[in-house]
Structures are given as structure tokens and as C-alpha cells.
């Protein structure tokens, strides 16, 4: 498992004793703002990737930006690594601490500082929950568009770190498309203002670079987000198919027809049946796959588009096309999709959520191949996709109590990600690399490209103290992973067709 930092392949990792951390950091923080006991730090030992656990050297809970600056400066002076953490809902181990590091929690930064209805912006602290922004501006007819499935709990600072997406990003964009500026504290304690209220800035686009940088470049202390007017109406279609490949073909037809759905989601048989049992969403349990297609906008246009998409779906081979008759049924259709992950609990004691993106045209091939890989590893997989943008979430079903099952799940996950790279996709669509996919970075990127990432990081963080061991692999790690991976020149599963 990857929840152990390995100096041999992850590089040097500075550590000082707890006593020194307390002496240096406690005076910089409010009373109770530094945790060093095991029971105090226990809630911080893992993030949303609960299979990985590790305790930090200390947990710092600053309440003001000057305190963040002071803590970072002190850590820089001490040479101690820092892992920033928002709500801890990330799924790639990006906020996983390692022994000896300082875990910097931004949870106290939970205020919406300003809402400007005219400019359609909100200035928020990084610990504000994603959904709280939309809730706070709903009475103005506005919302914050990115809606990762954890939006009830996840924080906007974490969203910036991961460039979070969500169901609606097909139409409304990712986090990077919905923020205007960032206040960032560097490891040296400097404050940077990146981006601006104006729609562009002079020089390099550092706000875009910071977005999705997974806590490796700086600590976000304030975000100016863009708010979007709520659409007049939203309606959803549920289409069922007796063949997964036919469903995948229908997705391409919708996209090629010039329609931009607000959401276009797909679930395969195992996923939809588990979701139906869990949420009673009204899904046809005999289907091999279902598509949910949401359209929003002006009422008359939505009515027309619903008719067009319904026809397209029928022509594409859907066996049944149902339009949610009212808002209650629309919510019900979505409840199944939103409950798909927890529903996996009915199929297996544990599930491991994979996150790759592929070109849509590769979907049928990839589905077939995922099935074969799962069989080869002796594990079941249920598939949930953001089909409109080719973002797959195969859910690997396993039982951590069984000897070797966790390792098999990890190996199958890695194989699926490498499959995504082979067909021209990526190892992570929205969950981030974090600790989890650090080895697969060696597959997606050349050493030269990983070196460039290290060089970009060094421009912000010359000592390499921000979230080390995450996101960008070292040369040593890739060498070791490559050696395991291409064992004696033979790829794993040589019987499997490569495309």
C-alpha cells in the first residue's frame, strides 16, 4: 500500500521531533490550535481515500491568514513538510499526512466574506463548503456551478486544489472555469494574488496553474468565485438500453448533434441495479445500461430539446425513453445516480472508486476490457460514468478482510488507469493524482514531463516542502515502478490485447 512514505523512492523527507514542532508552532497559533496527541490527530490520519492511513507529526489549525503565513514560514525554516487539508473528502489521498509532517487544516476558514449580486461573484474563505455557496446565493437567482458529488461536505479550497468537476461541468465547466482570483500563501510566507476581478491578468496565467495543483505549489487562503444565473427550468430523460455499447453510441450521437446537456450520466447493469435497490429511483432493473440526460435553459427551448434528444435516443437503439414528468420525478432519477457509490455497500463490503477519462469513442472497447481485467483479477466491477465527458468511475468491489483482496483491488485499479492512458485518455478526470495514482504518473508522462512538473514546483517551493510524495513521482519511483511493472521485459497480463 502507498500510505507509507518511502525515502528510497519518494526522496528526502525532513522530520523534527514533536517537541520542536510544539515549541516553534504553538506560539504562532491560537490556544488549542496545535494538536500533537495521537487521539487529537486521529481524525486527520486519512481523507476520503480511507484505505490509506498515516498520522502526521502535528496538526495546525490557524484562524487567520497571518497565522498561515507564520506556520508556513516556520515549517520552511525547520525544513518540515506541510500537507494542506480542506474538508478531507478527496478521493486520491492528496491530504494524507506522513509521519513528521505538519498537517495544515483550513477548516477554520469557513466564512463567506462577501457576495456581490451585481458582479455575480462571491469572495469566500477556502474552508467554505461547496454547496454552502449555492445555498447562500439561491435567493438571488444564482448558483456556484461546479458540483462534485461530495458538494455537501467538500470545501472550495479543496475544489481549487483538485480542479473539481461534477455532473454539471459538461455545460458549466470545472473549477478553473468558475473562479476569478485566488489569494495564496507560499511556503516562504509570501502572499500572492493570482487572477483578478477583471477577466484577464498580465503575465503568465498563474491562477490556472494553481488550480488543480493539489497543494504542491501554495496554500489557498481566499477564492473569488463566479456565480451563474440559475436556469429557468431543468428536465431529465431516463433512457434504458439492453446493450452497453449501444448506450455508449447514443452518447456520441447526442454530442455530435450539437446538444450541450447540463449532465449526461451512464450506469451499467450492476451499478443501476444496486442504485435502484438503494434509492428506489425507478430504474429498469433488467437494463444493461441507462443514460440520464439533463437539459436546462429557457422553458420552450428545453421542451424542444427534450423532444430532439428523446428521438435521438430512440433512433440510437434505446429500448425505453422516459422524461421525468415533474420535479419530484427528476429528483428521484438523480437520487439513484447520486446514491450509486453508497449503494455499492449492498454488493460488497468495500469498493474502490477509479477515476479515469477516455475519448468517448473508446468507451465500448474500454468497457469490454475493464470486464476482462476484472475477471483476470477475480473481482467484480460496477461502472458509473460522466458519459458526456468520458470520465469513468469503475467501482471495484472487494473485501478488505480477505487476504490479498485490497492488493488485488489496487492492482486492478492501476491496470484500468493504464488502459485509459493507452486509449489516449488520462489517469484522473477529477479526483486528482494525490498519493493514490503516483505510480501511474510514470505511465502517463515521460521522465522529461515529470521533470518539468518538478521544475515548476521548485519555482514556487524550492525546498520541496509542500505535499511531498504526492502527484509528481520521482525518477527513482518511476524506475522502481517500471522495473516491477515491465518485469523482465514482459508486460503484466501479456494475454490481454493492447489498443
Amino acid at each position, binding site marked *: 500500500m502507498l500510505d507509507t512514505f518511502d525515502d528510497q523512492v519518494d526522496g528526502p523527507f525532513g522530520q523534527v521531533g514533536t517537541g520542536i514542532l510544539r515549541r516553534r508552532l504553538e506560539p504562532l497559533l491560537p490556544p488549542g490550535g496545535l494538536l500533537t496527541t495521537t487521539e487529537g490527530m486521529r481524525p486527520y490520519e486519512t481523507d476520503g481515500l480511507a484505505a490509506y492511513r498515516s498520522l502526521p507529526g502535528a496538526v495546525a489549525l490557524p484562524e487567520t491568514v497571518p497565522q498561515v503565513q507564520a506556520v508556513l514560514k516556520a515549517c520552511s525554516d525547520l525544513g518540515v513538510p506541510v500537507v494542506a487539508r480542506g474538508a478531507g473528502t478527496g478521493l486520491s489521498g492528496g491530504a494524507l499526512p506522513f509521519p513528521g509532517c505538519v498537517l495544515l487544516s483550513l477548516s477554520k476558514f469557513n466564512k463567506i466574506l462577501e457576495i456581490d449580486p451585481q458582479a455575480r461573484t462571491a469572495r469566500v474563505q477556502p474552508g467554505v463548503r461547496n454547496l454552502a455557496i449555492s445555498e447562500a446565493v439561491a435567493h438571488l437567482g444564482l448558483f456556484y456551478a461546479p458540483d462534485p458529488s461530495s458538494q455537501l461536505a467538500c470545501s472550495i479550497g479543496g475544489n481549487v486544489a483538485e480542479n473539481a468537476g461534477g455532473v454539471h461541468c459538461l455545460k458549466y465547466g*470545472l473549477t478553473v472555469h468558475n473562479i476569478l482570483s485566488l489569494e495564496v500563501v507560499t511556503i516562504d510566507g509570501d502572499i500572492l494574488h493570482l487572477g483578478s476581478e477583471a477577466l484577464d491578468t498580465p503575465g503568465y496565467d498563474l491562477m490556472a*496553474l494553481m488550480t488543480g495543483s493539489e497543494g504542491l505549489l501554495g496554500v489557498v487562503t481566499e477564492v473569488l468565485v463566479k456565480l451563474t444565473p440559475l436556469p429557468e427550468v431543468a428536465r431529465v430523460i431516463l433512457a434504458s438500453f439492453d446493450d452497453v455499447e449501444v448506450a455508449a453510441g447514443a452518447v456520441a450521437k447526442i454530442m455530435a448533434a450539437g446538444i450541450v446537456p447540463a449532465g449526461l450520466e451512464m450506469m451499467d447493469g450492476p451499478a443501476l441495479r444496486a442504485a435502484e435497490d438503494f434509492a428506489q429511483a425507478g430504474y429498469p432493473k433488467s437494463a444493461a445500461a441507462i443514460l440520464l440526460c439533463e437539459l436546462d435553459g429557457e422553458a420552450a427551448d428545453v421542451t424542444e430539446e427534450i423532444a430532439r434528444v428523446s428521438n435521438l435516443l430512440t433512433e440510437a437503439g434505446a429500448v425505453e425513453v422516459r422524461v421525468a414528468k415533474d420535479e419530484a420525478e427528476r429528483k428521484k432519477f438523480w437520487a439513484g445516480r447520486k446514491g450509486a457509490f453508497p449503494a455499492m455497500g449492498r454488493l460488497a463490503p468495500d469498493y474502490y472508486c477509479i477515476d479515469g477519462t477516455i475519448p468517448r469513442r473508446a468507451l465500448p472497447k474500454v468497457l469490454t476490457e475493464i470486464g476482462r481485467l476484472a475477471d483476470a483479477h477475480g473481482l467484480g466491477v460496477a461502472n458509473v460514468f460522466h458519459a458526456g465527458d468520458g470520465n469513468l468511475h469503475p467501482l471495484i468491489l472487494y473485501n478488505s478482510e480477505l487476504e490479498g483482496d485490497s492488493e488485488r483491488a489496487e492492482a486492478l485499479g492501476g491496470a484500468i488507469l493504464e488502459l485509459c492512458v493507452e486509449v489516449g485518455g*488520462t489517469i484522473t478526470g477529477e479526483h486528482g493524482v494525490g498519493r493514490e495514482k503516483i505510480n501511474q*504518473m510514470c505511465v502517463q508522462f515521460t521522465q522529461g514531463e515529470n521533470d518539468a512538473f518538478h521544475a515548476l514546483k521548485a*519555482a514556487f517551493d524550492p525546498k520541496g516542502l509542500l505535499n511531498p510524495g504526492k502527484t509528481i513521482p520521482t525518477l527513482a519511483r518511476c524506475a522502481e515502478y517500471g522495473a516491477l511493472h515491465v518485469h523482465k521485459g514482459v508486460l503484466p497480463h501479456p494475454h490481454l490485447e493492447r489498443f
Partner: protein
Amino acid sequence: MDQTQALTEAVQGAANTHRPLRLVGGGTHEFYGRAVDGKTLSIAGHKGIIDYDPSELVITARAGTLVSEIEALLAENQQMLAFEPPRFGPSATLGGAVATGLSGPRRPFAGALRDFVLGARILDGRGQSLHFGGTVFKNVAGFDAFRLMAGAQGGLGLILDVSLRVTPKPRSERALVLDLGSEAARLRVVDMMRHPLPLSGAFHDGERLHLRLSGGEAAVTGLARDLGGEDEPMAVWQDIANLAHPALAGDGPLWRIAIGQTRIAPADWGPVWDWAGGVRWIRQEIDAPNLWDAAAALGGHATLFRGPRDQVFQPLAPAVRRLHERLKTAMDPFGIFNPGRLYEGF
């Protein structure tokens, strides 16, 4: 016409001798940015569309490909580049569009050029070919170094090819012109943008408000009816994007000031604005330091878009400038790519 090999050799040669290069695509943005003293390296011959599948909503092309060729191909498939890269001449290339990073009038409604860049293959300052991002919209593997190329003026790498997200053409479009003064029009547009209306352009020429409506037929027809005004040719919007509109055209100095859309601009900036009030255009000589201060006070920055080329872009805050210098060194250690085009020293 893949010239990767020749371009790689040229960059490696420059890296070995530490001799700066002046990167040129179609030469149509030659007037923009600070003058570069270096050996000219043309990328115009490195052209051709590599991949385009309309149902994937992505096009990948070499840097020297003409923007006009890309837009024509997309139009055949009822698609477009939503960021409307300005074309200051027929020879404008994809690489030049990305390197200058400029977005057209649709920016406040559809997003910036950098929002549509999905991936880029570049040569770094050692002549090493690096590929960042890819061809899919949702991709968070590694830093978004490809977005960093947008607007870097070629200073962080020689762009070899780019993948762009493309957008279906709106099903219905109207161009309207309304008799409304500059400030009243800006307030009207700000108010309109609080609602989910099918707007895709809002420009004031100093006398009248030009609006472009794009979207579903019902929404466009409904809004046009509510607005009144007169229809005008859709080609007006190309002129606005390309600075060929009579309110923007000319050879004299041209300042571009980007500010918060709801900020009130000083009267001496004149009445002409684009980007729904977020960009002011001024055709006159102005004392730069004062203008920079004034723009910063309104949440933005000023650029001497056309004119004497010593200091063109708004000075950076010291900590941000230091970071720029370090990033430049990270990607281009010998300082061979367009040195000084953005700022003196890098």
C-alpha cells in the same frame, strides 16, 4: 507538414549557443507585446490538422495551422471556437492565437481561450518535446502546464501542437443595436447578466450598444422582442473581435484596460467598451504609470495594445514577478524563447 525535427534542431542549436529566438507564426500579432531581439524562427510551416472528430468536441492541430482553416472546418460541422480568437490578418495561426492568449467578445459569456485548451505539445528551452494535458475535457493529471502556455507569448516553450475543446454553434443568433449611452448601457447589461439570458456579446461603440444573442430559438426570439432595437449584420462581431470596428480601428496608440465589470471607469477613459463593460478601449496617448494605478484600483490592469513598445504590460507585484522569473528559468533555462516580449529581463 510536420516540422518537429527541424524546429527541435533549431531550438537545440539556440540552447547550445544561448542565442535567443524570436518565435513567429503568421506574424499578425507582431505589433503586440515588447520587441524581441533574436533570430527569427518561423513556425508557420509546421501545420496541419492532426485529429478532429466532431462527436468528441476536440480538435488537435499543429501550431502553424491557420485559424481560418480550423474555423472553416469546424463550421462545416456546425461547431466553433467559442473564445473567438481575434484575427488581425489572414495568416493568423493557432500557435499565435494560443501564445498571445487573446479572447474575443464572447469571453464574459463563454470563457477565455485558456479555458478551451485541453493539451499542448511543446519544445522546452532545451529542445525537449513535452506533452501536457491531452484531448479530454476532464483531466487533472499533473499541473495544467498547457494552460500556462496560453498568453505566455511563447516565453515558456515553443508550441508544437494544441488540442482545443470546440463548441456546437448556437442554434439561433441575432445581432442587435440599441440607442443607449455608454454608462446606461453598461448598467443595463450588468442587470441582464444576472438572469439566464442568451447573450454572447455586449459592446458599446461610444454611441450605441451592440448586443449579440445566441442560444435556443425561443430564448433568442423572446429576448430580442423584449430588447427592441434594430437588427444589424452579424459580421459586426467579427469586426469587434478583430479590432476592425470603426470605434477601434486605426494605427495610433490603443490602450486596453480590463477592469471589474461593475466598476465605474473614470470619464476620461471615454465611452467605448467590450466584454460587457469588462474591457475599455482608449485610442489616445495616456501617461502609463497613472493608467496602471487607476486600472489596478478598479480590480484590473492596462495594456498598451498598440503603440510604442518599451513597456506594454502592467508591471507585476514584486512577489509575482519573482515567481515569473523562476518559472521562466524552469521552462527555458537559457532564456532563448522571446526574451523580453512580456517584460524587460524575461
